[in-house]
């Protein structure tokens, strides 16, 4: 029995090693920084789900240094289409947003925003939250933000991140975008080129509107046509005592306790009846 148990354990371990997902070597092609997978769910008491880009797990993205025509540090904003999962209507909320912003050295203040979908590109701004960039940025959204975004569950949104990125820096604020097909969100049924970028100073030229994909602007990239922001939206909850909304639950508890009291009285009556029968027979 013990031998069979050990054999089963070894077989399962071997199967796990064989089927473990291997990262695409392309994803590491131009990375000089050390990136670690985001572990935002470790911050949650209750894990509800994760929307991750790339969909197949945390992989490392290609450096924004691919934008070779930029001479220095600039503000770049990259928007990425997000399909919010349809969550059970039991008060589940988006608690954390993690953006894998791989920087060398200290990060700089940035901002991420949520946008509505407007025919396949970012539409109206829903909200914008300032953040501080750091390695594997994990941002806890406010209750107000979570409440606002909850009305978009099951729908299509865009998430964008803007930060100063120095394309020529090896040491300094430099963050990375995806550049391979494996970084597209096709697992969610989207076509390529769903990522749009935005340069505040219109350095993409007059033909580039606010939200632009690279095919419109005709930019020359050194590798890969696909761009993607590496993000992770974590739907999770932490222990909360909610004093203000106890009425429905108290009603349920009231019914339960009422039923319990009735049951107890019934059992007591049965007990008394059985004792009375014993007394009569004696």
């Amino acid at each position, binding site marked *: 029995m013990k031998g069979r148990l050990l054999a089963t354990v070894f077989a399962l371990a071997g199967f796990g090693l064989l089927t473990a997902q291997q990262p695409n070597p392309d994803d590491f092609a131009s990375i000089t920084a050390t990136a670690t997978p985001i572990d935002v769910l470790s911050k949650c*008491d*209750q894990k*509800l789900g994760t929307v991750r880009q790339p969909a197949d797990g945390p992989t490392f993205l290609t450096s924004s240094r691919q934008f070779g025509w930029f001479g220095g540090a600039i503000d770049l904003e990259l928007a990425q289409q997000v399909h919010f999962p349809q969550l059970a209507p*039991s*008060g*589940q909320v988006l608690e954390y947003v993690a953006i894998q912003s791989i920087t060398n050295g200290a990060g700089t203040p940035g901002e991420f925003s949520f946008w509505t979908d407007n025919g396949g590109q970012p539409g109206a701004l829903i909200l914008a939250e300032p953040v501080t960039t750091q390695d594997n940025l994990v941002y806890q959204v406010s209750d107000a933000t979570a409440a606002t975004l909850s009305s978009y569950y099951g729908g299509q949104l865009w998430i964008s991140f803007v930060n100063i990125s120095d394309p020529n820096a090896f040491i300094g604020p430099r963050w990375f975008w995806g550049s391979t097909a494996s970084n597209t969100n096709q697992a969610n049924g989207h076509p390529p080129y769903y990522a749009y970028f935005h340069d505040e100073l219109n350095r993409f030229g007059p033909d580039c509107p606010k939200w632009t994909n690279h095919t419109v602007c005709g930019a020359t990239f050194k590798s890969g046509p696909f761009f993607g922001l590496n993000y992770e939206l974590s739907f999770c*909850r932490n*222990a*909360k*005592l*909610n*004093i203000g*909304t*106890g*009425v429905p*639950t*108290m009603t349920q*508890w009231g019914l*339960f*306790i009422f039923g*319990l*009291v009735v*049951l*107890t*009285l019934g*059992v*007591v*009556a*049965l*007990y*008394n009846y*059985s*004792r009375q029968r*014993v007394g009569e027979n004696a």
Partner: protein
Amino acid sequence: MHFPFNRKVFDKVFWRVSLLAPVAWVAIYFIWGELLIADIVGVIITVPILSYLIHVILLMRQE
């Protein structure tokens, strides 16, 4: 109505049921995703009533 009561049996049952209270709170939290004040109060009220019920059932079995 006569309410039977055996202190020794009730005490034994009460403490065992009381140990289940934290388990109930944890279960509520993980099933419903939140723990309300009403849940804490509800469990606290339920413990002695449930203890008494079990205590009566045990008395019936003993006698």
